[in-house]
């Protein structure tokens, strides 16, 4: 129905916002939305491999991510400069497209709704 972009801008684990946003994204896809997810700024820390949420009794965020394609959420993007600035190796599964800030501006401008103001 609608083009929906979810933006993740905080790291996982300190709070459960990211997990809650992924759940909303999956439901968006179930409802036939055209769903994309953009990781930017500290949100790109969620793309690190080898996470272990179970060590503090939480779900592992990277495992939730790799389940997204099963829910037909496969338009995943990250801010290239946020990744570079953090000298960070990001997960290859699911596949994440790196976008310049200009490309992000266009991604945002072409949505019906944008979801995910965090703090």
């Amino acid at each position, binding site marked *: 129905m609608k083009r929906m*972009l979810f933006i993740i*801008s*905080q790291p996982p684990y300190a709070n459960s916002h990211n997990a809650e946003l992924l759940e909303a994204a999956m439901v968006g896809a179930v409802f036939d939305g055209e769903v994309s997810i953009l990781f*930017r*700024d500290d949100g790109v820390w969620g793309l690190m491999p080898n996470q272990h949420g179970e060590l503090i009794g939480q779900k592992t965020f990277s495992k939730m991510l790799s389940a997204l394609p099963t829910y037909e959420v496969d338009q995943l993007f990250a801010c290239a400069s946020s990744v570079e600035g953090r000298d960070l190796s990001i997960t290859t599964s699911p596949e994440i497209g790196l976008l310049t*800030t200009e490309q*992000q*501006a*266009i991604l*945002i*401008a072409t*949505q*019906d*709704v*944008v979801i995910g*103001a*965090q*703090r």
Partner: protein
Amino acid sequence: MSLHLVFNTAGYEACLKRKLSDDPIILLGDGVYCATQLEGGNIHALEIDAQVRGMSLAQSKAKPIDYDAFVALTELHSPVVSWAE
């Protein structure tokens, strides 16, 4: 054309990098603290949030608005994007 709601100063930075140059911005909440150091135009600030904080918008590039004008801007633009860090 998108409308950007900026809730604090870090949100302003994140927004500025990722908005199209003509997109309007509304500063609200702690976002009004950006009002004195703005780049570009088409920027509005929720006047009541500035008054609460003792911020004067007189020397600012931001246009003071009330909630009715806020609503009017959301009518004109889509999507409405919120920025807070």
